[in-house]
């Protein structure tokens, strides 16, 4: 037992010297994660503002100009072009100069004046379906509110009494956890998860195979070290570095982006620890089965991409086909994303998050055990 601990301790000393001796490596472990956290925190957003648009007003009436000025007044749209010819629209959309074009037919004001339905056509670049959908929604809202006001104004002229009592339904919105519905609040905790995954996976994926490449693995094999001691010696340093990175980037999320940390720091820490176990386990597994560092890097890349996509980071898991939803149960990122967002925004505790914690613990223990068993003190 004492021999085991002593061997493990010297494995760790060696690993830390290797990692921390070089100034550049030291920076690489802490600098990029923090920088990326700041940059991604700003960039990862679903909000749609300042959609460039063109207006083609064939009517040139007071009513049509009023509608266009409503678009201009909205922070969602930038009216960049006022066109006179329909053929210009296709060119602007092709070149990506505008995302939407609104065409108001001649006779718009006349039809409205007669109390009939007036038409305006919207052409939208739907190659980004999300922007198109949200943009159309905003456009509809602006046009709808203008239509309601127009109705009220004309009603108050023709039947002043009826105008006051027009029946309507109003939905009072009560967004819980994120009152302003800031998508930054949604994404920043998610980005923490993504960064952790990338850091830990890339570090551990090359760890064992690197020793294989430089020939130290063959040397280690002829010493009395046990394989569990070796694997632990490889795991613990990256576990600690991962924990340090997690603390730093969570601090950026909390103090820089002001995402409220409503739950317990300790619940968040427990979730992070359990997630790290899984990520380390998978990284080590890749490292023990790879023949070269390059192979390990490519393999971990092929893991990281789906792990993020099937985690609910961007698109919700509930929108995926049922089969894929079951598959996400094997993805530690899926649980970690839930833990991050729930602890940050909802402030819930273990009583709610225990299934996620259990899932991550199971994956972590399983993958670490598989790595130890898969690693043989043999060159075959």
């Amino acid at each position: 037992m004492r021999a085991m601990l002593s061997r493990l301790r010297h494995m760790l000393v060696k690993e830390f010297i290797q990692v921390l001796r070089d100034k550049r490596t030291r920076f690489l472990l802490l600098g990029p994660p923090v920088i990326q956290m700041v940059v991604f925190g700003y960039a990862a957003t679903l909000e749609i503002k300042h959609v460039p648009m063109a207006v083609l007003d064939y009517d040139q009436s007071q009513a049509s100009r009023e509608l266009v000025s409503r678009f201009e007044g909205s922070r969602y749209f930038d009216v960049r072009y006022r066109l006179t010819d329909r053929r210009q629209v296709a060119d602007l959309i092709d070149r990506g100069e505008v995302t939407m074009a609104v065409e108001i037919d001649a006779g718009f004001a006349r039809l409205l004046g007669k109390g009939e339905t007036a038409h305006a056509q919207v052409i939208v670049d739907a190659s980004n379906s999300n922007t198109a959908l949200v943009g159309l929604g905003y456009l509809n809202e602006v046009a709808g509110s203008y239509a309601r006001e127009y109705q009220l104004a004309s009603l108050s002229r023709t039947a002043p009494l009826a105008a006051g009592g027009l029946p309507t339904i109003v939905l009072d919105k009560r967004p819980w956890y994120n009152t302003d519905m800031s998508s930054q609040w949604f994404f920043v905790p998610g980005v923490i998860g993504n960064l952790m995954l990338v850091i830990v996976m890339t570090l551990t994926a090359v760890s064992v195979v690197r020793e294989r490449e430089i020939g130290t693995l063959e040397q280690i094999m002829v010493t009395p070290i046990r394989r569990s001691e070796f694997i632990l010696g490889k795991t613990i340093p990256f576990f600690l570095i991962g924990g340090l990175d997690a603390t730093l980037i969570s601090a950026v999320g909390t103090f820089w982006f002001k995402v409220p940390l409503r739950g317990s720091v300790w619940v968040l820490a427990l979730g992070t620890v359990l997630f790290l176990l899984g990520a380390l386990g998978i990284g080590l597994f890749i490292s023990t089965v790879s023949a070269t560092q390059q192979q390990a890097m490519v393999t971990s890349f092929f893991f990281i991409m789906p792990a993020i996509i099937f985690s609910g980071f961007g698109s919700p898991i509930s929108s995926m086909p049922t089969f894929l939803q079951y598959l996400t149960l094997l993805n530690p990122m899926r649980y970690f994303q839930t833990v991050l967002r729930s602890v940050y925004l909802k402030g819930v505790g273990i009583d709610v998050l225990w299934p996620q914690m259990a899932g991550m613990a199971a994956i972590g223990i399983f993958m670490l055990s598989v790595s130890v068993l898969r690693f043989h003190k043999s060159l075959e």
Partner: protein
Amino acid sequence: MKEGESPIAVRGLTKSFPGVRAVDGLTFSVERGEIFGLVGPDGAGKTTTMRMLAGVLTPEAGEVRVAGCDLVKDPEGAKQRVSYMPQRFGLYEELTVDENIRFYARLFQVKGKACEERAARLLAGAGMSEFRGRLAGKLSGGMKQKLGLVCALIHTPEVILLDEPTNGVDPVSRREFWAILYSLLGEGVSILTTTSYLDEAERCHRIALLHEGRLLFCDTPAALKANFAGQVLSIVTGDPRPVASLLEGRPGVGSVMVVGDGLHVVVDDPARVAQLKNELAAAGVTASIEAVAPTVEDLFVEAVRRGKG
């Protein structure tokens, strides 16, 4: 280890890789205080043999006993008493000389004063005492190899396995390397080394020639030379290559090898000298021919030729 048991005893050792039988029924043993050389061309199975003896490769068939331990049953059993130095010793380049030594020492539970004394003595023997604080990555090739040896010896092993330890090492470092090996023999160790330098093979107590996974012969260099069937002729001539092709395949002529500015030719009978002189004269070549004692290289080349024939 039982009294009288050889520290390394191999019997019928066999190992195949897909498509090749790398080691084929190898049998030999190495005694205490002996340096045993495994000699052979690339691909002869030397490294595979070493790896099986080191317990990092599982034999397919045969018995391997190292330091009294049956490696087929218990590949981990002998590790504390065995040292293995692969062709490229795995040093951590980011660690200093001292840190590398300490790391390997601790994995073997060597510590404290014992470790310090052993490290100091080995480093002094390697002429590296003043480089203890240098990063291993900043050492020259010969120094790296010597540091590898120091790390491999730090736990005072009984059996030392060296796989081409002096490959690519300068002559001065090679001499120091061998001096360290000889000094270890006083501790009663057994050393098994592979080498492709035939002058090094001469320094071994016994050598074994390995060819295509099989042992061609095994004895002391002196006995091998004494029992050599045939006579080596040294032929000195201006341009040896055309002469070599002239002599190859002639009756009574065995292997023909270009050595420096002359040839070593193996013939079945010393009396062939006159015949060769006539043949060369007929071809218009002036050359001096002299009977010489065989070198290990001659044994080696002739044995490989006969093995093929």
